[in-house]
């Protein structure tokens, strides 16, 4: 069994173990790595190989980013910097593996190398060694050469981290180079923003001066679909990341509220909610606006479609047809409707990259005067068994899976502040990515 299958299997197992009597219990410790000991890994500070004045700054950025990426991966038991040997081995000849294998580091793996800056270029040599294999310790050896800048120092660290994660994490691509798109009101109006997966490099994408919400990036990372309030109402709009400006989505502004777009995994179709028929329903259209057709037919709100990214043939969405909103799934033609949640207030589904799970926001005790909290849950689609990931911490909404399926980004409102957080898909390692202003509706890029 490959590591990947093992991960998925153990997650299913942990969900399966939540037999019905346990449902009432809020706090359950379960996760993607139960029964799998995490690999203990050390990331040595890289050796500065030149005396260029930029070297110390770029090295500091590189070292911090690499350590952070490996920590964030959720696969490793990281050796803290204070437990690491003082050495900065710059090459395989300079490393003393026994030193890293011994207490207190106890590392099974060590990442090390050198960083130099010369003539405006940054050069990095990086290795990953198995500390217990003294005969043939090298697992990975990489070389990078880029324009010298903090941004590129970070990018190289992301690439090296992703190589390590790919090699040790069962052949699933790392996410260190992925982006998160979100809505921020920092400029004074709600606009689309982007940031690196770790919260670095936050920057504004749109400058429309109205209210924009629900950004969703295309599977090939070339476009962002979102909804904007125009003079005639809400329209689905598109921004091209390639040419850096708005592009058209014909039919996206027709009649009434058009909102909550979602990309089919092939990137050629959009599903969204539109009230053009007189009631908010789910519609699907090609990217050029052709073949616009309606797939739901019930009175009441139907919103927030999300495609099964594995098959591209199913859609999960939110419907208020029975009163409070619930999560449903259906075929992309609108047939075979299945209700997934059994009550409360369930919204904002996101489908896991492997097609097996949904994550969504659920207030199971919703009602006038009810003390329920709005939390992030995941559900195994086949069994409808669910697991609560956030507890007793504000109102949580808009979860979005990372492309490796190991992480979830979401919005958390504490008091009056809404900020963006990430966590592992078992609810651990929660960390806040944005600070200040209102930051909401995160969407993790597909790659």
């Amino acid at each position, binding site marked *: 069994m490959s590591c990947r299958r093992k991960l998925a299997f153990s997650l299913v197992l942990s969900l399966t173990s939540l037999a019905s009597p346990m449902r009432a219990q809020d706090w359950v410790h379960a996760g993607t790595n139960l029964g799998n000991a995490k690999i203990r890994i050390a990331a040595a500070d890289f050796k500065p190989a030149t005396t260029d004045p930029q070297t110390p700054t770029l090295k500091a950025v590189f070292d911090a980013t690499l350590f952070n990426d490996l920590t964030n991966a959720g696969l490793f038991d990281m050796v803290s910097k204070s437990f690491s040997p003082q050495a900065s081995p710059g090459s395989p000849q300079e490393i003393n593996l026994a030193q890293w294998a011994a207490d207190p580091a106890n590392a099974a793996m060590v990442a090390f190398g050198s960083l130099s800056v010369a003539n405006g270029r940054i050069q990095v040599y990086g290795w990953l060694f198995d500390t217990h294999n003294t005969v043939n310790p090298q697992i990975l050896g990489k070389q990078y050469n880029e324009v010298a800048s903090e941004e590129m120092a970070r990018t190289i660290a992301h690439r090296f981290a992703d190589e390590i994660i790919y090699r040790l994490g069962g052949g699933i691509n790392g996410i260190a180079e992925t982006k998160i798109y979100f809505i921020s009101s920092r400029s004074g109006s*709600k606009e689309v923003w982007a940031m690196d997966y770790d919260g670095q490099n936050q920057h504004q994408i749109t400058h429309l001066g109205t*209210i924009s*919400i*629900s950004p969703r990036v295309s599977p090939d990372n070339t476009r962002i679909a979102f*909804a904007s*309030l125009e003079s*005639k*109402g*809400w329209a689905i709009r598109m921004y091209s990341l390639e040419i850096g400006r708005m592009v058209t989505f014909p039919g996206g502004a027709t009649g*009434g*509220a058009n*909102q*909550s777009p979602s990309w089919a995994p092939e990137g050629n179709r959009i599903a969204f*909610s539109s*009230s053009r028929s*007189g*009631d*908010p329903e789910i519609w699907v259209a090609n990217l050029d606006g052709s073949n616009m057709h309606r797939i739901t037919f019930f009175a*009441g*709100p*139907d*919103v*927030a479609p999300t495609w099964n990214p594995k098959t591209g043939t199913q859609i999960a969405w*939110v419907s*208020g047809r029975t*009163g*409070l*909103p619930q999560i449903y799934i259906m075929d992309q033609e609108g047939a075979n409707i299945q209700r997934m949640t059994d009550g409360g*207030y369930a*919204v*904002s589904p996101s489908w896991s990259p492997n097609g097996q799970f949904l994550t969504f*926001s659920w*207030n199971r005790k*919703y009602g*006038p005067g009810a003390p329920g909290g*709005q939390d992030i849950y995941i559900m195994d689609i086949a069994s409808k068994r669910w697991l609560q990931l956030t507890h007793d911490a504000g109102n949580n*909404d*808009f979860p979005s899976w990372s492309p490796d399926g190991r992480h979830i980004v979401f919005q958390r409102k504490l008091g009056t502040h809404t900020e963006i957080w990430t966590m592992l898909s078992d609810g651990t390692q929660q960390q806040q990515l944005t600070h200040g202003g209102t930051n*909401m*509706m995160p969407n993790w890029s597909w790659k």
Partner: protein
Amino acid sequence: MTRNKLVFVPVALFAVLFGVAGCKKKSSAPTEATAPPATASPAPTVQLTATPSTIAAGDQVTLSWKTVDATDVSIDGIGKVPTTGVKTVIPSESTTYHLVAQGPGGSAEATARVVVTTPPAVAVPTNTMTAEEEFKANVQDVFFDYDAYDIRSDAQATLSHDASYLAAHPNIKIVIGGYCDERGSDEYNLALGQNRADAAKKALVEAGIAATRIRVISYGKEKPFCTESTEACWQQNRRAGFSIDQ
């Protein structure tokens, strides 16, 4: 009324001045005309009517005139005109049209007065209330239960009052905004707001208001009327709000 009088004075003055200027020209003509032998030409006769004689600002008035034995006809403020004719004018203030006809046998004149009434909006007795304020006072918002978009019984009464005002003011077009409280998802609330605004629109249409006069926008929880996390505030924000479509 005072305004009409004030207006009338300059108009009359203008007419007098113009008349004097015309008379000067006219008085020189007869001095020459008296020289030829008198051919017993009858003096011209004229008739001038303005219909209707009372209009609202911006409306049209038809001036029609007939002359007999006249060769040269002019209307003050319009200039030379055919001896018999019809002309459409749009006076912005009350005006006295003054026609002078000259012929070999002398001259004649006629007048027709058009009274321009002020527009009704300005004539509303409470001068302090703008059209917007009057709309707000008469067309009231309706409120909804939580997570619901059906019209409550208290909202039925409000909507029928709203509809009667709109029926009496057929020129007003409206926007209905759908609003939700802060709880729950932004996307779901946007759809719910749409349902609320559409429900209010449907009620007005059923009460006889033309659907073409009504535009609907959902604001979800984007534009709250208040921001406290209390049931009183939430109720304020669960509404269909009416405003004039400018």
